[in-house]
């Protein structure tokens, strides 16, 4: 292999003791002496803590003093400390991408605590590899992008409205796009909302009034977002209303599509009259007390089954809420809830469940293998405790059906290039670390589009998504990472192999020139194109073949 490490490369190596975290388990003197023998290394310094102010200053001073043009720090993990050391280099006038780290703590001293000698050998190899790579690093540039400070929110339900209100109050222009003729989504169809047990109008009217009077919020009813282009900070969303199109620039997009209630056609004799869903029961309750004395509620109808394996989470509390409301209006009503497991989480719901049992709502478990059978005037079920079939007389059967994904969820998923799961719910970037973000920068999610949630959770998520979005909208400019792919137009044969593997749609093919080209703003630096390219024309800056080959050779040279 041609050695392209230039002779004018001057590398400084900083070896960190990390107190006793590294120095307690590895031979530091040996590491320092070994580092001095490595090619192109002109300066080696041992620090008690390289990340301390003193350590950082030593890097900043050594760069001009020893005319360093590459810096290697052998310490902890780049996952936590690379940005700090990179900015130290930058402050000293060195391109931050001329920096490399050797992980000799998390992946060496801490995992080889009883193997001082061989652990030190590994640390030497890791430092040698980092130096070999550093010698081949190139200056990279971050691209500065201007951005739009506006937001587009798809969905005007309670989560979308909460997000719109939060962003509007922060002073960002918001376009709230609702496909129906009014705001509110499912909130419009409910009778009483938990845990305050009040009609939804108060919340709904309050939110709508505040949005309508907020000059920063533009409400688009009977509208959909039909097309989006661009990337974080610079999206263009097309809002379609009755065939008319409006293009708006925006920095971020929030997905708040919501969900809909499954209509249980063909299940338990559903007919919308005396076998109804809880949503239908709520609209009856809105009109006044119901006449039926004997009511059976069946849980998990169309959920937790082969077709829909998930638990819809909110049906148990809805059933208990409605049972309590009926009991309050008519204490002589006989209500039986047939359930598989009760999902009544948190202090308030537990309390509500206890209250329902106190006032005489009966709860009977059933086995899905021996599901209840709805007959004319009764429901028969195999009673697990009694070990026999029982028949419960009733005039009304209420089915708890799950929330299911919106019909347009797959289209929105394709349009924004964000994932949905097998049930059509949107998948967040990380269940714990990025619950309201997508992996795609600048696109966020909240509410039922993500998973069935309570109103309180939907509001919380809407505010949370707005706060995540404000993290981008509040910036004056955005910078891309310098570590992006590049395709050599001289050698690219236009096979489109890279286009097929790029998960971010960051590579364009130019047929007139027969070559592919990377959009460096969209590129996330995964390097899939570089691994696929048969002619090695695609290269990931900062992780090039040449750099990785140098690491491999150094690792195996000793």
């Amino acid at each position, binding site marked *: 292999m041609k050695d392209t490490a230039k002779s004018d490369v001057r590398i400084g190596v900083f070896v960190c003791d990390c107190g006793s975290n590294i120095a307690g388990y590895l031979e530091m003197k040996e590491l320092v002496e070994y580092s001095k023998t490595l090619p192109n290394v002109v300066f080696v310094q041992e620090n008690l803590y390289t990340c301390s102010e003193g350590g950082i200053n030593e890097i900043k001073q050594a760069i001009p003093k020893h005319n360093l043009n590459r810096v290697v720090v052998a310490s902890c*993990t780049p996952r936590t400390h690379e940005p700090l050391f990179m900015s130290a280099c930058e402050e000293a006038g060195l391109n931050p991408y001329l920096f490399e780290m050797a992980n000799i703590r998390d992946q060496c001293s801490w*995992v080889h605590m009883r193997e001082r000698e061989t652990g030190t050998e590994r640390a030497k190899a890791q430092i040698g590899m980092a130096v070999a790579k550093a010698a081949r690093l190139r200056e990279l540039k971050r691209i500065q992008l201007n951005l739009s400070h506006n937001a587009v929110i798809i969905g005007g339900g309670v989560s979308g409205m909460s997000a719109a209100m939060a962003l509007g109050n922060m002073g960002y222009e918001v376009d709230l796009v609702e496909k129906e003729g009014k705001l509110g989504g499912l909130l419009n169809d409910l009778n009483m909302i938990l845990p305050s047990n009040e009609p939804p109008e108060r919340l709904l009217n309050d939110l709508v009034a505040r949005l309508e009077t907020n000059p920063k919020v533009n409400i688009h009813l009977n509208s959909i977002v039909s097309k989006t282009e661009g990337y974080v900070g610079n999206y263009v969303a097309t809002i379609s209303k009755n065939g008319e199109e409006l293009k708006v620039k925006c920095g971020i997009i929030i997905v708040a599509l919501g969900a809909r209630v499954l209509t249980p056609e063909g299940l338990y004799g559903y007919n919308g009259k005396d076998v109804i869903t809880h949503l239908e029961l709520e609209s009856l309750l809105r009109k006044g007390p119901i006449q039926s004395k004997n009511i059976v509620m069946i849980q998990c109808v169309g959920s937790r089954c082969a077709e829909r394996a998930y638990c819809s989470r909110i049906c148990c509390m809805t059933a208990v809420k409605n049972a309590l409301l009926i009991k309050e209006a008519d204490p002589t009503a006989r209500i039986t809830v047939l359930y598989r497991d009760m999902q009544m989480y948190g202090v308030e719901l537990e309390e509500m469940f206890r209250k329902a049992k106190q006032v005489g709502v009966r709860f009977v478990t059933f086995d899905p293998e021996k599901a209840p059978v709805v007959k004319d005037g009764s429901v028969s079920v195999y009673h697990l405790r009694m070990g026999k079939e029982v028949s419960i007389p009733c005039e009304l059967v209420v089915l708890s059906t799950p929330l299911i994904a919106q019909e347009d969820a797959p289209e929105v998923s394709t349009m924004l290039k964000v994932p949905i799961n097998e049930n059509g719910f949107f998948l967040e970037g990380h269940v714990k670390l990025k619950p309201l973000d997508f992996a795609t920068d600048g696109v966020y999610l909240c509410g039922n589009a993500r998973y069935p949630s309570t109103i309180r959770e939907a509001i919380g998520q809407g505010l949370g998504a707005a706060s995540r979005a404000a993290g981008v909208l509040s910036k004056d400019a955005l910078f891309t990472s310098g570590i992006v792919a590049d395709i050599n137009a001289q050698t690219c044969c236009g096979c489109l192999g890279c286009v097929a593997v790029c998960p971010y749609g960051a590579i364009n093919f130019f047929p007139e020139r027969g070559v592919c080209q990377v959009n460096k703003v969209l590129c996330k630096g995964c390097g899939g194109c570089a691994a696929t390219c048969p002619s*090695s024309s695609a290269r990931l800056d*900062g992780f090039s073949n040449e750099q990785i080959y140098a690491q*491999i050779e150094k690792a195996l040279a000793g």
Partner: protein
Amino acid sequence: MAEEQFEPTIIGFLCNWCAYAGADLAGVSRLQYPPNMRTIRTLCSATVGPHQILKAFQKGADGVFVGG
């Protein structure tokens, strides 16, 4: 002469977002493992090309670990 015990050298390509993070977590958790691996951080396991794996074997690696 006593026969020296064979100690393999393993090149480990670890994805920054998962396997590399896992290797860091092993350290934070103080899980002990033999020091035979030499880690190369990649930004995605998809970036590890066949050429890189072959290069490792060509240069004498006894094993290649791709974690991603």
